[in-house]
């Protein structure tokens, strides 16, 4: 109990850090994931190959390795001096984008064939078919897997704490360095994460219900 009360400002910062890194990298993952899914079903072979390579590579790389790449290799190539927060969100967002891509692609596969055929037969182009007809209908089937992907993202954000991003795991480390017993610290941190993951699943539950009504 005292651990939390004595170090509340740090805990609050950590909690806000976890929420914000989750939010930022979710947006990155969502945008990139949908884009790459679009590439993977596109009529242009090199872009399809790129999409496949992207997913295969990122899915089979440990996230910790991606963090190392993001912190040690990326600054050497692009803009040096990006904040750890930004680098962490990039690594997390890129990693998760491959899972989002797969979810979106399997969502696209569940849309009845007739829909795309109808869209084509009234003369829509590939991007119109995808944008106006297929993706909106795929959304409904993509929502449940996306929910678990974003919960996993929240849990993975703990790794960012080990790379000097302010968030809840950082708080756990700080507290154990200050000599507090690990059990209460563990419980508080776990509770912090539970709040975020419950919020995400609640949010997705709401979205899912709205989508259901729309049908």
């Amino acid at each position, binding site marked *: 109990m005292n651990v939390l009360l004595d170090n509340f400002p740090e805990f609050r910062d950590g909690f806000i850090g976890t929420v914000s890194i989750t939010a930022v990298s979710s947006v990155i993952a969502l945008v990139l994931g949908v884009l790459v899914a679009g590439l993977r079903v596109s009529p242009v072979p090199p872009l399809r190959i790129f999409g496949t390579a992207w997913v295969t590579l990122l899915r*089979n790389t440990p996230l910790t390795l991606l963090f*190392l790449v993001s912190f040690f290799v990326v600054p050497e190539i692009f803009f040096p001096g990006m904040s750890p927060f930004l680098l962490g969100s990039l690594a997390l967002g890129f990693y998760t984008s491959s899972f989002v891509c797969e979810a979106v692609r399997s969502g696209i*596969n569940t849309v009845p064939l007739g829909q795309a055929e109808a869209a084509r037969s009234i003369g829509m182009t590939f991007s119109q078919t995808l944008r106006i007809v297929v993706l909106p209908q795929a959304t409904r089937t993509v929502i449940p897997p996306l929910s678990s992907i974003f919960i996993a993202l929240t849990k993975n954000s703990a*790794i960012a704490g*080990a790379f000097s991003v302010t968030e809840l*795991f950082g708080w756990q480390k700080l507290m154990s360095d200050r000599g507090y017993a690990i059990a209460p610290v563990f419980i508080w941190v776990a509770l912090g994460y539970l709040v975020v993951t419950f919020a995400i699943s609640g949010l997705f539950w709401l979205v899912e219900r709205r989508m259901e009504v729309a049908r």
Partner: protein
Amino acid sequence: MSASVLYDTPGPKATVRNRLYAVVGSLAILALLVLSFVRLSDKGHLAPEMWDIFNYAGIRQNIADAVIATLKAFGLAAIGSLILGVILAMGRLSDHKPVRWLATAFIELFRSIPLLITIYAIWVGFLTDYSMWALALGLSVYNGCVQAEVLRAGINSVPKGQGEAAYALGMSKTQVMVSVLIPQAVRAMLPTIISQLVVTLKDTSLGFIILYPELLQTARLIASNTQVNGQYPYVSTIIVIGAIYVGMCLLLSALATWIEKRGRRTSKGSGPGDAPETIGAPSRLRDNGSAV
């Protein structure tokens, strides 16, 4: 399948346009690669000396030890998580309410806490001097919970008649589970189980944070202890170690795909082998599992 449905067979105009996109797209990707290459070589990361360090016997030995350390932690975690998975799945399907509740609570609790938090707490709390065991235990607990859910989904996907027939023959509950339900469930869920093992293998990299000398930790040690041309060879080390990791994970994933294909081929008619392909819950689980 969907790829061909989403667009018409390109006519002459569309062919030209697609080719244009192909060229522009490839050029953009190529430009990005070249830019990275040039920037890296400008900073001297691609100098031969940077890569020469992998010719030293000491560093090679370090990497070999690290691969073995990673595989050791992975092996322990794989065995631990499978055993725990079976126990927890049995617990969740038990006829006794307290056992069911206990197993459910355990699974839900450890599945929703970040693995790193668990590993770190185990390391600091109990096993400070045994980082390998802390890592293996943490991985087993977390992945055991996931495997338990996979197995449960598999057992539930076995047609009901199988269990009923076994009971009608007078088998006890244990016999029904061990000799009828579990074999079919494992067969149906083998690809998912293996892809969760790939996740386990990837997660051994968390040993980096609790200072277990696995691949990534070794990479960091090599990179920060060797100085070449006044620089630390982070880029070359990360690329080499990364290639090893991706190779190992791809091998295991390939095994999963192979088994999946093989299972689909040999299953006759509507056997449980192809059940997870059509039912929503197991495939959702797979998404969930592999995302972690």
